[in-house]
């Protein structure tokens, strides 16, 4: 089973990388892009009996290691099929 974990800085936390990317997009003329927040994305291959179990494991991993909850928040999506989408 595959879980996707998205980690982003909490809205209240200043994001130096996102700010630089925003500025860069503006210099390239993308003024419509008002703000960028940079984050991290993880794909977890999980050996689990059910989606709920996979979700629980992924949430635990995110809370314990993948995110630093002092500054980051996270979101988990679980995919029941292990088929990979072709890029």
């Amino acid at each position, binding site marked *: 089973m595959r879980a996707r974990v998205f980690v982003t800085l909490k809205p209240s936390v200043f994001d130096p990388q996102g700010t*630089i*990317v925003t*500025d*860069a997009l503006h*210099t*390239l003329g993308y003024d419509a892009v008002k703000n960028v927040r940079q984050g991290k994305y993880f794909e977890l291959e999980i050996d689990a009996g059910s989606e709920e179990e996979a979700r629980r494991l992924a949430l635990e991993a995110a809370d314990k290691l993948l995110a630093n909850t002092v500054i980051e928040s996270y979101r988990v999506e679980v995919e029941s099929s292990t088929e990979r989408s072709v890029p």
Partner: protein
Amino acid sequence: MTITDDIVKRHGLAPDEYQRILEMLGREPTLTELGIFSVMWSEHCSYKSSRVHLKTLPTTGARVIQGPGENAGAVDIGDGLAAVFKIESHNHPSFIEPYQGAATGVGGIIRDIFTMGARPIALLNSLRFGPLDEPLVRRTFAGVVAGIGGYGNSIGIPTVGGEIGFDESYTGNPLVNVFCLGIAKADEIIKGVASGAGNAVYYVGAKTGRDGIHGATMASAEFDEKSAEKRPAVQVGDPFMEKLLLEACLEVMKTDALVGIQDMGAAGLTCSTCEMGARGGAGVEIDVSHVPQREAGMTPYEIMLSESQERMLLVVKQGRESEVERIFEKWDLHAVRIGEVTTDGLMRVKSDGEVVAEIRTESLTDGAPLYHRPMTEPAYLTEARRLPSLGAPRPADEVFRRLLLSPGIASKRWVYRQYDHMVRTNTLVLPGMGAGVVRVKGTSRALALSVDGNGRFVYLDPYAGAQLAVAEAARNVACAGGQPIGGTNCLNFGNPERPEIMWQFARAVEGIGAACRALDIPITGGNVSLYNETDGTPILPTPVLGVVGLIEDATMIASGGFRSEGDSILLLGETLDELGGSAYLKVMHGLVRGVPPRLDLQREAALLRLLVKGVSCGLVRSAHDCAEGGLAVALAECCFETGLGAEADVPRVETALPGFRDVSVLFGESASRVLVSVSAGRVAEMETLAAEAGVPVATVGRVGGDRIRIAVGGRAVLDEPLAAAERLWSDAIGNYFESQHATG
């Protein structure tokens, strides 16, 4: 699979080279064998165009412990220790992907050093880019700098110095040359050799993927199409893996259980296997199915040609295997036995027990083709050496400011601030001017290190220009108080199949040889990078010299910055009417023209001796070479370093160009000149010392005040406020990024 003409061509092998392979094997090669020959006989691995010239370089000397031919050179620095060092290029990958290209360049040279049993303690780099006004160049520049920092900082080896140049010819072909130096016990240097039949061959480090397999050498249609798609164009560096390898290998080396070790750099497993066998006069048999693989379905061809980073090949003494395995396990690395040393002199590659390649190791190394490529003096030289009419010069203060703002001369603080230059707590002179200086812990000594090259000079006169590069690097280490004891070169040129380029190359190597002989600097190794061209336009020929200087007493060193108000400023050497190839002509007139400054090697040698003597006895309080931008820029740099102003009156010079008297004195780049400062009371002593050494000397001014004032023959020609000039100089490079965005 039948080897067709097309497949041979795609492997970059000439028809006569293929013929040679057929003769050596006595049969048609397998595809894997063809791949192995193609990478080993490539210019990069075989030095087939350059070897006949490189052989003329002086490579021996009383201090030389290891000359060219090993992973790095080594010189004796006393106390039973050796300095192990080399410079290498990573030009092309750095253009494709600046961050990873530069980072893996750093990783590669570090492996070359610790492979010899040395702990790396310093990195330097020599970089060339196009003009920073171009967004593409800015991106390349920022990426290369971040990549060098990213790798060096993480692994914890300080980047203590270097140099950066700019010219249009590097726009599509930046140069990234990285120098690394390590310290080893002189009698414990380990070599890349395989010997002792039955000894195990181990693989350790990162898993093998499809990185860096030469795309063009693959017969794509006949081959697995999917694997071609999956092949990444660039290698990605993993400094953490390399840090583990570094520590684990150094720990293993202490045990005396190793016969030899070599990193898998260019041509990966192929190169390390056959080179180690050839050096030991032995054969090596490996089975690629034991090689740890990152991707599924890799063919023996791909495994043998992969250039995945952070991998090492070791030969372990029989009976010591578990000891070695245990040390790697401690560092969470798994050393895998992939084969053993044999007596038959063959490199035998198996896949699941089936032989897929069997070649005499020597056929791949010493048996590689050797070319005496045709050479012709380039036609451009006659015209280029003539200085055209320049019109009336701009006022000296305007020229001065323009030069300070030009990226080649401007402060590189924006760059070296991104490099950890203090880790390991040995850095005695911070980067910024001249040589980097690191102490050797456990001894009273220090080493001064400098990398230098000037493509403009070499373009205008390869022989003289290359000599000037040697002299400048040597002068820089001598200014710090270091006696030059060894050198390494990185020769960056265009396509050697063009007779003009080959001529530049050959003349430059002759020049390096002559200068190194005169200055007693043996070349212990290096690297050649050819085919540096974009759309048929070559780069300025750019040999870069790395020189190591030995400082006997680490407490007696000098840096370039003035030390105290009231000190006297002396100019060692002679200023002549020499604007050829100068930064002045490039920045103010957009020209690379004229004859480069003359270099008298005997006088340079005398100057080096004088500097080492003057610094080591504490007489010379600061010393700074007059290089790009000439005397005026050199004086300004001495002031910027410590924020002390200066007043100078320098002798006038007769000039060929009317009206260029001041320009020539202030901004001409005559060789073998150094600005030193001494206590006011010791001027006579310095003058005597210089006279004894046969070095022209003139007391030209004193340190103090908050302005930079220069007069020529008693007539004031430059009077600038120090703080404002310093601001121009220090902000110039950062301004390209802060105002226009690093990613722009």
